[in-house]
């Protein structure tokens, strides 16, 4: 691993979230300076800020992209108790120009009481030439919630254009744009009361018919009275409602992030949880016989791996595209990469940390798992490049386990 380039983000305060679009050619950053910036990658690989505008009246916690099938759509959520959905408008003249892009707010707010008012709304980023501001769009304002909106996520695309929010008051709300041609209309479809302050949500990405829509909700409630800080909700065809299918009772500490892995056509689901450690769960659906036929699916829950090397709280977990790597970020100020070998044994294969301070020692191994079988790990993740020096003898770095030759009982025949 190496730092390929650094981009000056030009936010006036802390960055809270960075999000890639589906193809990795665009990026959105959100910050405590209440703004969102959109960045585009040029042919030469450089990132250019193409839009920057004030989105909320509080810290913007998260920003996320909808699937490009729905156009260029962003969702953001904030301490100001609202979530907002934004669509980029392309002016007649600026299509191929390098100028700033134009983003309009499609919907804002958190909680719907069935009361929707529409009004013309002008978005005019400070740096946008004035002629771009001749656009008038409708803003749909929904009545605000009482608490901070902590996470916002789009549902998998096979469900249509669906966005979900969760808030500190313990409510998960699922909104839908029924007409994907008109994204200014959003309706609240479901409201799930989780009873505990919600910090994070993750949709199960599986599009298999065998798997009904499923969402995992994490809670950062610090009380120990309630065990099970991760709840799994599943859509029920018959009742047309989301119902709790499972509670991960073994997770008793506050949860800061949850993340479903891509399904890979498997029958079971894999969920990573960031709590006081990193945990990977396997959720195996039990056959219908073992659960109530019309009720939610029951799961056998297994812990696949558990890593405590962040020492304290873990704040984010995220999978790469094919879920061969899990990254986590924690109180030790490091990002750690976790990888399973072909025997499904998990190990730390890389660490990122700031150069401003020192973290002692090499990363510790998976606490509960050890492997006696070969564990191919990617050498390049280990910071030093073996071959780049160009000499055959520099087969460095000497890796643990390779430092001493094997000792054989047999001595020479000579």
């Amino acid at each position: 691993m190496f730092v390929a380039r650094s981009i000056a983000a030009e936010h006036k305060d802390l960055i809270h979230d960075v999000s890639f679009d589906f193809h990795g050619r665009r990026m959105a950053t959100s910050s405590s300076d209440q703004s969102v910036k959109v960045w585009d990658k040029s042919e030469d690989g450089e990132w250019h800020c193409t839009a920057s505008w004030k989105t909320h009246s509080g810290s913007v916690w998260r920003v996320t992209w909808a699937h490009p099938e729905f156009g260029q759509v962003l969702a953001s959520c904030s301490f100001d108790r609202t979530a907002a959905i934004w669509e980029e408008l392309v002016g007649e003249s600026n299509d191929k120009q390098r100028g700033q892009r134009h983003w309009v707010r499609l919907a804002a707010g958190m909680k719907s009481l069935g009361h929707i008012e529409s009004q013309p709304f002008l978005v005019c980023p400070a740096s946008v030439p004035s002629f771009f501001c001749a656009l008038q769009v409708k803003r749909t304002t929904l009545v605000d919630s009482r608490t901070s909106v902590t996470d916002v996520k789009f549902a998998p695309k096979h469900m249509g254009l669906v966005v979900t929010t969760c808030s500190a008051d313990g409510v998960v709300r699922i909104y839908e744009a029924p007409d994907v041609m008109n994204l200014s209309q959003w309706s609240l479809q479901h409201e799930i009361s989780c009873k505990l302050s919600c910090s994070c949500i993750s949709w199960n990405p599986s599009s298999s018919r065998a798997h009904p829509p499923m969402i995992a909700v994490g809670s950062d409630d610090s009380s120990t009275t309630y065990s099970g800080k991760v709840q799994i909700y599943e859509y029920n065809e018959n009742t047309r409602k989301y119902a709790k299918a499972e509670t991960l009772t073994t997770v008793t500490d506050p949860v800061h992030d949850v993340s479903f892995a891509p399904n890979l056509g498997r029958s079971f689901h894999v969920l990573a949880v960031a709590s006081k450690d990193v945990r990977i769960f396997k959720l195996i659906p039990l056959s219908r016989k073992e659960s109530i036929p019309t009720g939610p699916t029951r799961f056998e829950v297994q812990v696949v791996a558990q890593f405590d090397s962040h020492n304290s709280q873990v704040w984010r977990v995220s999978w790469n595209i094919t879920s061969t790597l899990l990254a986590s970020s924690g109180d030790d100020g490091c990002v750690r990469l976790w990888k399973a070998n072909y025997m499904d044994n998990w190990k730390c294969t890389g660490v990122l940390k700031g150069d401003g301070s020192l973290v002692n020692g090499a990363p510790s191994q998976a606490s509960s798992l050890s492997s006696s079988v070969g564990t191919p790990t990617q050498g390049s993740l280990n910071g030093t490049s073996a071959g780049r020096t160009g000499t055959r003898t520099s087969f460095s770095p000497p890796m643990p386990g390779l430092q001493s030759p094997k000792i054989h009982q047999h001595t020479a025949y000579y």
Partner: protein
Amino acid sequence: MAELIPGIDSSQRHLGFVWGPGDLLAYETQYKPTGAQHAAQSCPFVHVVRKDEDIYSPILRKLFNESHHIFVGLQNMKDDVPISTRDTALATQYGNQVSILLAVELIWNLCEVLFIEAAPAGSLLLHLLDWVRLHKADVDEKAQEVLQSECPAEHQAYWDVTVCYILQGRIDEARQILLKQASQQPAARVTFKLMDSLLMKMPIYNPGGTQTLTEFDVKWRRWHQECDRCLQDNSFASHPHLELICKILVGDEDTLLEQREHLSTWYHFLVTRLLYCHPTVKPTELHYYAQASMDMFLDGRSAPEPLDSILLAAFEFDIHQVIKDCSIALNNWWFVAHLTDLLDHCKLLQSHNLHFGSNLREFLLLEYASGLFTHHSLWQLAVDYFDHCPEFGRVYLELQIERVPLDTERKALKVLRICEQRQMAEQVRSICKIMAKKALRNNRLGSALSWSIRAKDAAFATLISERFLQDYCTHGTFSDLDLIDNLGSAMLLSDRLTFLGKYREFHKLYAEKQFAEAARLLLSLMTAKIAPRSFWMTLLTDALPLLEQKQVIFSADQTYELMHCLEELTTGKVAPETELSMQEDNIEATKIELLRLALARNLALAIVKEGTLEA
């Protein structure tokens, strides 16, 4: 082992991250409970951290491309054809790369000799000698230098070269170079002659010959004794260089170790010792000699490096250890993926471990191919690798290919073709949908329509058809005529698209002066409810010039139907409210009057004409 991100103090702040395609973004942040505002200035950078640097090396790209051809060739090879790396010229193609790959080549060649050629006793040593010669080629350079000098025999490197030849078992070359010295020293002629005859008599095993290994062994022992005798009776005592050579010939351990400089590696030492002590070494015995040679050669002077361990594992025929160690020590998955695949094809992995042999191969291939997929052009090679991974290849390809940026139509078509060839219906639909959406954003209606037809997206096709019709209403012409004219059965995707296609057909018939056909089509658009109600007035206006023609085009029945349509449209209209719509309404009222007049006139003409014909 940790990668440092500049300008961030990990003890004060958290490190935020996000996965990108191939890259990981890292930035300074603070994950603390809600609302806490930090006045402190934060690090204003987002850092792009790249995982696989080799992908971007231009030299390695050539290697990736080359090995891809070989990989695909290997997959298509029939099972019963025995695989030999010599036949497929793998060695030369995989090799011949820059110095980074020398170590890889060294391991690869050894694996070829040991696992794939699986040479038996006798020829095993010959292969090992080839292997050492290939990787210790600096002797040739030096020899060249010596031979091209004015007086080779007096060149300072003369004896170095001679000894190196002997150490590598290049007897013929050694004899030739010794001749030059002999001619310079007539006094020592007899001694040189003796050495020459020793070298000449040295038996070399010939795998293709009729001689059995036992016969060879007997012959070799006799020769070995002869060398030993020469040493005992001090035949070369007068000539230290020749004595040294003779000591090497009898395989004297201390003498060989003194040649550390010339041997340079323990595995060269191993092969030389085998040559002069155990030329009939069996594959199974190899690892005893290897371990001992390594211990003796390194002699605690330096710790074995990863390369040493890998080679040792190979000498032990421990394939899994080789693969494991290579994965750890090498920079990318290229080597292990291809080596494992080759071994798997040689049925070597199964024989070693029945149940996960195939999985190991697939695991490594998936890793390698996923790495390639992050590159803007190498991803196309990765497709073939995924195709040959029976278990997860398809899912990986699905996940990866939909992330390929669709920068241009050409690239989109390329990706689409790959998906179509593999019946990846969902990916095909999604790509077309994205492209349609993109085209519409850029106001390229024709492109948007053809992509949405490909995506079989009825709602979107309807939307775009509306846009076409709107454009027609404002400009009076259609754009993208060749597309609309050639819709064919695709127009059935949505009602509005059908209407668009049919309406355009009407215009064509009209332009070709096939008025009767045109009239029939126009009417059917309304009566069969294909045309949206909002468009009827336009259609009726289109009927005007047909009604005004000299000859009768609409029959009486058709005229009645037209009148019916007009009435249906005008009844139940709400009174206008604004000034503007009042004006518009006036225009519309005039239009309706004109239509009524034309319809009445045409009806009269039609009745007369039809009555006349019947009479």
